[in-house]
Protein backbone atom coordinates (compact mmCIF):
# COMPACT_ATOMS: atom_id res chain seq x y z
CA UNK A 1 0.00 0.00 0.00
CA UNK A 2 2.67 2.49 0.99
CA UNK A 3 4.92 1.51 -1.90
CA UNK A 4 3.31 4.16 -4.03
CA UNK A 5 5.11 7.39 -3.18
CA UNK A 6 2.98 10.48 -2.72
CA UNK A 7 4.62 12.06 -5.76
CA UNK A 8 2.77 9.68 -8.04
CA UNK A 9 -0.60 10.65 -6.63
CA UNK A 10 0.41 14.29 -6.96
CA UNK A 11 1.38 13.58 -10.57
CA UNK A 12 -2.15 12.33 -11.25
CA UNK A 13 -3.80 15.31 -9.61
CA UNK A 14 -1.49 17.81 -11.34
CA UNK A 15 -2.16 16.20 -14.70
CA UNK A 16 -5.91 16.29 -14.03
CA UNK A 17 -5.67 19.97 -13.08
CA UNK A 18 -3.86 20.91 -16.28
CA UNK A 19 -6.19 18.81 -18.44
CA UNK A 20 -9.05 20.83 -16.97
CA UNK A 21 -7.07 23.99 -17.62
CA UNK A 22 -6.60 22.99 -21.28
CA UNK A 23 -10.34 22.45 -21.61
CA UNK A 24 -11.01 25.83 -20.05
CA UNK A 25 -8.65 27.52 -22.52
CA UNK A 26 -9.84 25.83 -25.71
CA UNK A 27 -13.56 25.28 -25.26
CA UNK A 28 -15.93 28.16 -25.94
CA UNK A 29 -19.11 26.38 -24.92
CA UNK A 30 -20.30 27.15 -21.40
CA UNK A 31 -21.33 23.59 -20.52
CA UNK A 32 -17.95 22.15 -21.49
CA UNK A 33 -16.21 24.92 -19.57
CA UNK A 34 -18.26 23.89 -16.54
CA UNK A 35 -17.05 20.31 -17.06
CA UNK A 36 -13.45 21.52 -17.06
CA UNK A 37 -14.03 23.37 -13.80
CA UNK A 38 -15.38 20.17 -12.27
CA UNK A 39 -12.18 18.36 -13.31
CA UNK A 40 -10.06 21.07 -11.67
CA UNK A 41 -12.03 20.86 -8.40
CA UNK A 42 -11.65 17.07 -8.43
CA UNK A 43 -7.89 17.34 -8.74
CA UNK A 44 -7.81 19.61 -5.69
CA UNK A 45 -9.86 17.05 -3.77
CA UNK A 46 -7.41 14.27 -4.66
CA UNK A 47 -4.61 16.44 -3.32
CA UNK A 48 -6.35 17.05 -0.01
CA UNK A 49 -7.09 13.37 0.56
CA UNK A 50 -3.57 12.30 -0.44
CA UNK A 51 -1.90 14.82 1.87
CA UNK A 52 -4.17 13.79 4.72
CA UNK A 53 -3.44 10.12 4.16
CA UNK A 54 0.33 10.35 3.71
CA UNK A 55 1.45 13.31 5.81
CA UNK A 56 -1.13 13.70 8.59
CA UNK A 57 -2.63 10.25 9.09
CA UNK A 58 -3.83 10.98 12.62
CA UNK A 59 -6.09 13.87 11.62
CA UNK A 60 -9.19 14.35 9.51
CA UNK A 61 -8.86 17.92 8.27
CA UNK A 62 -8.22 17.03 4.63
CA UNK A 63 -11.38 14.94 4.63
CA UNK A 64 -13.37 17.92 5.88
CA UNK A 65 -11.93 20.22 3.25
CA UNK A 66 -12.86 17.66 0.61
CA UNK A 67 -16.42 17.44 1.87
CA UNK A 68 -16.81 21.21 1.88
CA UNK A 69 -15.32 21.55 -1.61
CA UNK A 70 -17.75 18.94 -2.93
CA UNK A 71 -20.64 20.86 -1.36
CA UNK A 72 -19.56 24.18 -2.83
CA UNK A 73 -18.99 22.52 -6.22
CA UNK A 74 -22.53 21.18 -6.20
CA UNK A 75 -23.94 24.62 -5.40
CA UNK A 76 -21.75 26.19 -8.07
CA UNK A 77 -22.87 23.70 -10.72
CA UNK A 78 -26.52 24.33 -9.94
CA UNK A 79 -26.10 28.12 -10.16
CA UNK A 80 -24.09 27.83 -13.37
CA UNK A 81 -26.71 25.70 -15.06
CA UNK A 82 -29.44 28.15 -14.04
CA UNK A 83 -27.39 30.97 -15.59
CA UNK A 84 -26.74 28.92 -18.75
CA UNK A 85 -30.42 28.15 -19.24
CA UNK A 86 -31.36 31.77 -18.67
CA UNK A 87 -28.70 32.90 -21.15
CA UNK A 88 -29.93 30.38 -23.70
CA UNK A 89 -33.42 31.77 -23.32
CA UNK A 90 -32.33 35.29 -24.23
CA UNK A 91 -29.46 34.64 -26.69
CA UNK A 92 -30.38 31.24 -28.20
CA UNK A 93 -26.73 30.32 -27.78
CA UNK A 94 -24.43 29.36 -24.93
CA UNK A 95 -21.19 30.30 -26.61
CA UNK A 96 -19.18 32.69 -24.46
CA UNK A 97 -18.24 34.74 -27.52
CA UNK A 98 -21.90 35.61 -28.05
CA UNK A 99 -22.47 37.12 -24.62
CA UNK A 100 -20.82 40.51 -25.00
CA UNK A 101 -23.33 42.93 -23.48
CA UNK A 102 -21.20 43.64 -20.42
CA UNK A 103 -17.95 43.86 -22.35
CA UNK A 104 -17.60 47.61 -22.90
Amino acid at each position, binding site marked *: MQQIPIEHILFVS*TALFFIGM*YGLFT*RRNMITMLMSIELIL*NSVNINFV*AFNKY*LFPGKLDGI*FFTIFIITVAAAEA*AITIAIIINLYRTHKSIDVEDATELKY
Partner: protein
Amino acid sequence: MSASSVIFYIISACTLVTALLAVTTPRIFRSAIWLLFSLIGVASLYFWMEVEFIAAVQIIVYVGGIVVLIIFSIFLTQESGAKMPKPALKRALFSALAVLFGFAFTYNLISKHAFTATSTQPFAVNVSDIGEQMLNPTEYGYLLPFEVVSILLLAAMIGCIVIAMKSPVKKVISENGKGVLAPRNEHKEEVDEVTS
Protein backbone atom coordinates in the same frame (compact mmCIF):
# COMPACT_ATOMS: atom_id res chain seq x y z
CA MET B 1 5.25 -4.39 -7.97
CA SER B 2 2.31 -5.47 -5.89
CA ALA B 3 -1.28 -5.79 -6.99
CA SER B 4 -2.21 -2.62 -5.11
CA SER B 5 0.20 -0.45 -7.06
CA VAL B 6 -0.84 -2.05 -10.35
CA ILE B 7 -4.44 -1.18 -9.51
CA PHE B 8 -3.36 2.38 -8.70
CA TYR B 9 -1.65 2.86 -12.05
CA ILE B 10 -4.61 1.37 -13.96
CA ILE B 11 -7.07 3.67 -12.17
CA SER B 12 -4.87 6.72 -12.76
CA ALA B 13 -4.42 5.94 -16.44
CA CYS B 14 -8.17 5.47 -16.94
CA THR B 15 -8.95 8.72 -15.12
CA LEU B 16 -6.45 10.78 -17.09
CA VAL B 17 -7.32 9.32 -20.49
CA THR B 18 -11.06 9.79 -20.01
CA ALA B 19 -10.50 13.33 -18.70
CA LEU B 20 -8.42 14.13 -21.78
CA LEU B 21 -11.14 12.73 -24.02
CA ALA B 22 -13.74 14.77 -22.13
CA VAL B 23 -12.01 18.04 -22.92
CA THR B 24 -11.12 17.23 -26.53
CA THR B 25 -13.99 15.31 -28.10
CA PRO B 26 -16.06 17.46 -30.46
CA ARG B 27 -19.46 16.03 -29.54
CA ILE B 28 -20.77 17.55 -26.35
CA PHE B 29 -22.84 14.57 -25.23
CA ARG B 30 -19.87 12.22 -25.53
CA SER B 31 -17.86 14.77 -23.61
CA ALA B 32 -20.35 14.51 -20.73
CA ILE B 33 -20.15 10.72 -20.78
CA TRP B 34 -16.34 10.78 -20.71
CA LEU B 35 -16.54 13.19 -17.79
CA LEU B 36 -18.76 10.65 -16.05
CA PHE B 37 -16.11 7.94 -16.43
CA SER B 38 -13.40 10.30 -15.25
CA LEU B 39 -15.35 11.14 -12.10
CA ILE B 40 -15.90 7.43 -11.45
CA GLY B 41 -12.14 7.00 -11.82
CA VAL B 42 -11.55 9.67 -9.18
CA ALA B 43 -14.05 7.92 -6.90
CA SER B 44 -12.20 4.64 -7.32
CA LEU B 45 -8.98 6.48 -6.48
CA TYR B 46 -10.64 7.45 -3.19
CA PHE B 47 -11.60 3.80 -2.66
CA TRP B 48 -7.96 2.89 -3.28
CA MET B 49 -6.87 5.43 -0.68
CA GLU B 50 -9.30 3.81 1.82
CA VAL B 51 -11.54 6.82 2.29
CA GLU B 52 -14.78 5.04 1.51
CA PHE B 53 -16.99 7.82 2.81
CA ILE B 54 -15.51 10.41 0.45
CA ALA B 55 -15.76 7.93 -2.41
CA ALA B 56 -19.45 7.39 -1.69
CA VAL B 57 -20.06 11.14 -1.47
CA GLN B 58 -18.18 11.61 -4.74
CA ILE B 59 -20.34 9.04 -6.52
CA ILE B 60 -23.58 10.38 -5.07
CA VAL B 61 -22.92 14.08 -5.63
CA TYR B 62 -20.88 14.13 -8.83
CA VAL B 63 -22.01 11.08 -10.75
CA GLY B 64 -25.56 11.09 -9.49
CA GLY B 65 -26.09 14.83 -9.31
CA ILE B 66 -23.81 17.07 -11.30
CA VAL B 67 -23.37 14.91 -14.41
CA VAL B 68 -27.10 14.30 -14.61
CA LEU B 69 -27.65 18.06 -14.29
CA ILE B 70 -25.10 18.69 -17.07
CA ILE B 71 -26.77 16.15 -19.35
CA PHE B 72 -30.14 17.74 -18.67
CA SER B 73 -28.83 21.14 -19.61
CA ILE B 74 -27.24 19.72 -22.78
CA PHE B 75 -30.60 18.34 -23.81
CA LEU B 76 -32.30 21.63 -22.97
CA THR B 77 -29.91 23.90 -24.82
CA GLN B 78 -28.58 22.18 -27.93
CA GLU B 79 -28.89 19.32 -30.32
CA SER B 80 -26.69 16.78 -28.62
CA GLY B 81 -25.52 14.90 -31.70
CA ALA B 82 -24.08 17.92 -33.47
CA LYS B 83 -20.38 18.54 -33.51
CA MET B 84 -19.01 21.63 -31.87
CA PRO B 85 -16.70 23.79 -33.98
CA LYS B 86 -13.07 22.98 -33.46
CA PRO B 87 -10.98 25.52 -31.57
CA ALA B 88 -8.73 27.64 -33.69
CA LEU B 89 -5.37 26.03 -34.31
CA LYS B 90 -3.49 28.96 -32.85
CA ARG B 91 -5.50 28.93 -29.64
CA ALA B 92 -5.23 25.15 -29.26
CA LEU B 93 -1.50 25.22 -29.88
CA PHE B 94 -0.77 28.01 -27.45
CA SER B 95 -3.01 26.64 -24.71
CA ALA B 96 -1.37 23.22 -25.10
CA LEU B 97 2.01 24.89 -24.78
CA ALA B 98 0.95 26.87 -21.71
CA VAL B 99 -0.53 23.79 -20.09
CA LEU B 100 2.52 21.64 -20.80
CA PHE B 101 4.85 24.31 -19.46
CA GLY B 102 2.72 24.76 -16.33
CA PHE B 103 2.61 21.03 -15.76
CA ALA B 104 6.36 20.65 -16.15
CA PHE B 105 7.02 23.57 -13.82
CA THR B 106 4.64 22.32 -11.12
CA TYR B 107 5.77 18.74 -11.26
CA ASN B 108 9.38 19.83 -11.14
CA LEU B 109 8.63 21.65 -7.90
CA ILE B 110 6.76 18.65 -6.51
CA SER B 111 9.45 16.14 -7.35
CA LYS B 112 12.16 18.23 -5.70
CA HIS B 113 10.23 18.77 -2.49
CA ALA B 114 10.75 16.21 0.26
CA PHE B 115 7.49 15.28 1.88
CA THR B 116 7.86 14.04 5.45
CA ALA B 117 5.08 12.41 7.41
CA THR B 118 4.34 13.91 10.80
CA SER B 119 3.22 10.71 12.47
CA THR B 120 3.30 7.03 11.72
CA GLN B 121 -0.03 5.94 13.11
CA PRO B 122 -2.31 4.14 10.64
CA PHE B 123 -4.77 6.15 8.62
CA ALA B 124 -8.31 5.17 9.53
CA VAL B 125 -11.40 7.16 8.63
CA ASN B 126 -14.51 6.23 10.54
CA VAL B 127 -17.75 7.88 9.62
CA SER B 128 -18.55 8.29 13.32
CA ASP B 129 -15.31 10.23 13.82
CA ILE B 130 -16.14 12.46 10.88
CA GLY B 131 -19.61 13.12 12.27
CA GLU B 132 -18.38 13.87 15.77
CA GLN B 133 -15.72 16.28 14.62
CA MET B 134 -18.05 17.89 12.10
CA LEU B 135 -20.64 18.82 14.71
CA ASN B 136 -18.22 19.60 17.51
CA PRO B 137 -18.44 23.20 18.78
CA THR B 138 -15.10 23.02 20.64
CA GLU B 139 -11.68 23.92 19.33
CA TYR B 140 -11.06 21.40 16.53
CA GLY B 141 -14.66 21.05 15.49
CA TYR B 142 -16.18 22.13 12.20
CA LEU B 143 -19.58 23.32 13.43
CA LEU B 144 -19.25 26.89 12.13
CA PRO B 145 -18.18 25.94 8.57
CA PHE B 146 -20.95 23.37 8.56
CA GLU B 147 -23.55 26.03 9.33
CA VAL B 148 -22.03 28.49 6.86
CA VAL B 149 -22.11 25.88 4.12
CA SER B 150 -25.73 25.06 4.87
CA ILE B 151 -26.61 28.74 4.53
CA LEU B 152 -24.65 28.78 1.27
CA LEU B 153 -26.65 25.84 -0.06
CA LEU B 154 -29.91 27.54 0.88
CA ALA B 155 -28.79 30.75 -0.83
CA ALA B 156 -27.72 28.80 -3.93
CA MET B 157 -31.07 27.06 -4.09
CA ILE B 158 -33.03 30.31 -3.85
CA GLY B 159 -30.66 31.95 -6.31
CA CYS B 160 -31.17 29.15 -8.84
CA ILE B 161 -34.93 29.49 -8.61
CA VAL B 162 -34.78 33.28 -9.01
CA ILE B 163 -32.34 33.15 -11.95
CA ALA B 164 -34.07 30.40 -13.88
CA MET B 165 -37.61 31.67 -13.27
CA LYS B 166 -39.44 33.05 -16.26
CA SER B 167 -40.63 36.60 -15.94
CA PRO B 168 -44.02 36.16 -14.29
CA VAL B 169 -47.21 36.72 -16.18
CA LYS B 170 -49.80 38.91 -14.56
CA LYS B 171 -53.46 38.41 -15.17
CA VAL B 172 -55.21 41.69 -15.82
CA ILE B 173 -58.94 42.10 -15.91
CA SER B 174 -59.85 44.24 -18.90
CA GLU B 175 -62.94 46.39 -19.26
CA ASN B 176 -65.30 43.79 -20.59
CA GLY B 177 -64.36 41.42 -17.81
CA LYS B 178 -62.30 39.04 -19.93
CA GLY B 179 -58.95 38.01 -18.60
CA VAL B 180 -55.99 39.37 -20.52
CA LEU B 181 -52.53 37.94 -20.00
CA ALA B 182 -49.75 40.46 -20.09
CA PRO B 183 -46.09 40.12 -19.16
CA ARG B 184 -45.30 42.22 -16.17
CA ASN B 185 -42.16 44.03 -17.14
CA GLU B 186 -42.29 45.59 -20.57
CA HIS B 187 -45.95 46.29 -21.12
CA LYS B 188 -46.96 47.31 -17.64
CA GLU B 189 -47.68 50.93 -18.52
CA GLU B 190 -49.70 50.08 -21.60
CA VAL B 191 -51.77 47.59 -19.70
CA ASP B 192 -52.41 50.13 -16.97
CA GLU B 193 -53.60 52.62 -19.56
CA VAL B 194 -55.91 50.06 -21.09
CA THR B 195 -57.44 49.09 -17.80
CA SER B 196 -57.89 52.67 -16.60
